[in-house]
């Protein structure tokens, strides 16, 4: 299948590994990935911060960039949720694409580590990803999936919330980090690098806490040295 990748502006600039992993994984599964270079940002950040006009321009730009593609995948739950609400694009979050469209739950990955999974608010409540990511992770060879306490609690990121309401955001982050650390996992996985940047930034200050990782990177891993 020919699949267009919406990598998202954040991954493009700060976390290219998530995009690279998505491409690697899909190509390994025998699919062709396209990357329309005219893409940048879906407009979510502008819209949620209160700037409707630039958000609309970016939504239209994204629509134009992906015109003619039947299947679009993105390794970001929040951006997929935004595209779904504000554009007519056929966008899928990675686990939706794998489980619902491609019908795979075992992607042939190997990742011999203890992993806990944070479901993220957009994945949980806007996209209703349910147990799709966990199903995919459980099929990974060598991976031990450990339940995260209070998984449905927001990590406190919320885009500019983290800056505008730094104190409350920090308090929410502290609770999320404590729950993550309590699992004893080596990695905390999630479907959104925005939340992961925030949680990971907090975990970096805890000794022995799990390391943040996008779950696409786990699904792309084969155990071979990269």
């Amino acid at each position, binding site marked *: 299948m020919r699949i267009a990748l919406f990598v998202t*502006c954040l991954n493009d600039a700060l976390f*290219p590994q998530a995009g690279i992993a998505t491409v690697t994984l899909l190509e390994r599964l025998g699919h062709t990935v396209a990357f329309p270079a005219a893409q940048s940002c879906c407009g979510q950040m502008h819209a949620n911060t209160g700037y409707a006009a630039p958000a609309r321009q970016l939504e239209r730009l994204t629509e134009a960039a992906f015109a003619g593609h039947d299947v679009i995948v993105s390794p970001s739950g929040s951006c997929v949720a935004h595209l779904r609400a504000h554009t007519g694009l056929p966008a899928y979050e990675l686990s939706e694409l794998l489980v619902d469209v491609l019908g795979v739950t075992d992607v042939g990955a190997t990742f011999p580590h203890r992993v806990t999974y944070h479901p993220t608010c957009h994945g949980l409540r806007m996209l209703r990803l349910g147990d799709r990511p966990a199903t995919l992770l459980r099929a990974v060879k060598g991976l031990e999936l450990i339940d995260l306490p209070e998984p449905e609690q927001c990590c406190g990121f919320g885009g500019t919330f983290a800056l*505008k309401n*730094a104190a409350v955001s920090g308090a929410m982050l502290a609770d999320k980090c404590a729950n993550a650390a309590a699992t004893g996992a080596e990695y905390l996985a999630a479907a959104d690098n925005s939340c992961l940047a925030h949680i990971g930034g907090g975990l970096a200050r805890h000794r022995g806490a799990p390391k943040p990782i996008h779950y696409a990177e786990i699904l792309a891993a084969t155990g071979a040295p990269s």
Partner: protein
Amino acid sequence: MSRNLPIVAITPFPVAAAHELGDAQLRANLGRATRTIRDKRARVVAEVADWEPMRDRAAAVKDEVLDNLAELLARFEAAAVAAGATVHHATDAAHANAIVTELVKAQRAESVVKIKSMATQEIGLNEALEAAGVTPIETDLAELIVQLADDTPSHILVPAIHYNRSQIRELFARRMPGFTATSDEPAVLAGAAREYLRRTFLAAKVAVCGANFAIAETGSLVIVESEGNGRMCLTLPETLIAVVGVEKLLPRFADLGDFLRLLPRSSTGERMNPYTSIFTGVTPGDGPQRLHIVLLDNGRTQVAQDPVGRAALRCIRCSACLNVCPVYERAGGHAYGSVYPGPIGAILSPQLTGQDAGFNKTLPYASTLCGACYDVCPVKINIPEILVHLRQTGPKPAAERAAMSTLSWLMRDRRRWRAALRAARSGSAPLRLIARRHGGTLRRVPWPLSAWTAHRDAPLPAAESFRDWWRRTHESS
């Protein structure tokens, strides 16, 4: 005038919240309370097979009310008047307070007994009555605690949740005439309130209440409660004054069927609250013989004109959204600077007053948009959507506006965007050297991003952007 309304924040939310976060007792009480109620709610909601269709129906009924507000108000008034009530219309808080004060004075009452009511808190009725020499007596236990402490409520449903039992015992000993108990058992404290208020109820001439629902078809008012103080106020005094927000209407009596199933389960997590009173006008020989209904607008008609924001008027004040809100759980009710706290407060207060009032413009930002509130709302108010709508229509700082438009300008052109990514990468090269010490993240960066590094390390631009990687690996051939 509007500056002093109890729905206007006088401190920016982030400042007030940061202050409240320092109160360990408050955080512990709130955390325990919200957790307990939300677990109870989840259990009793799971029992109801048709919960989701019921939410849809309830939302549709409330939208029908907002679409036909004037007509339904007229129908309600006609029915209530025919049943013996007197109906008044109040455009704003001052008007409503003046009407109520006048009515109380006409009965020569020196005090009134009150049932917990958000509408009367919204208009600051207690303060207005006191200014006119009338003593308002809150009869709901939590409201009584808050009133005796000269404090303000911190939660819609459990307003004194920020007090623990020993604080309450100490407060009663100081402020409640005749209180002698030495135990701080909740049953003993509740018993003391019963004794204290019983004398008050038997002597009361005038009661003031709100209403959970007002039925246009029959002119009936519906009051949902637990303790029986409501029944006392609705039954014993000769005169009853109900202050009812115009959005409390339901078109038909039969509509109550869904709402009385939705409200208690969403609110206290019970299948049904202990007492619900439904009354229509005046019944000879039974209950108050004078019933005044003050229909309160106070900005509601205005809000009903906003195609997105109007959904906030569906609210039935169950407080389910507070109990699931991670921001409320940590900041507490007082941080919102309004009698309406939590997610509903963040969308209702700024709409009722306009975002320019006080610091109400900071309320739509008091959320991560996590969506937990929308999931539990029994009338399906899409609170995150309204928060975003209010951010988009509200005032914003000029520097932020400039930054956002520059950013979108960069993002709208692929050459500009690629150049920006490269510039960010080379500009951050020196930082990357520093960051190596912390495993690739930054511990401190300059303002304005210092707000970020106060609580967490910051990521750095990648050494190679995704699009450069793609060009290198997929487009070179």
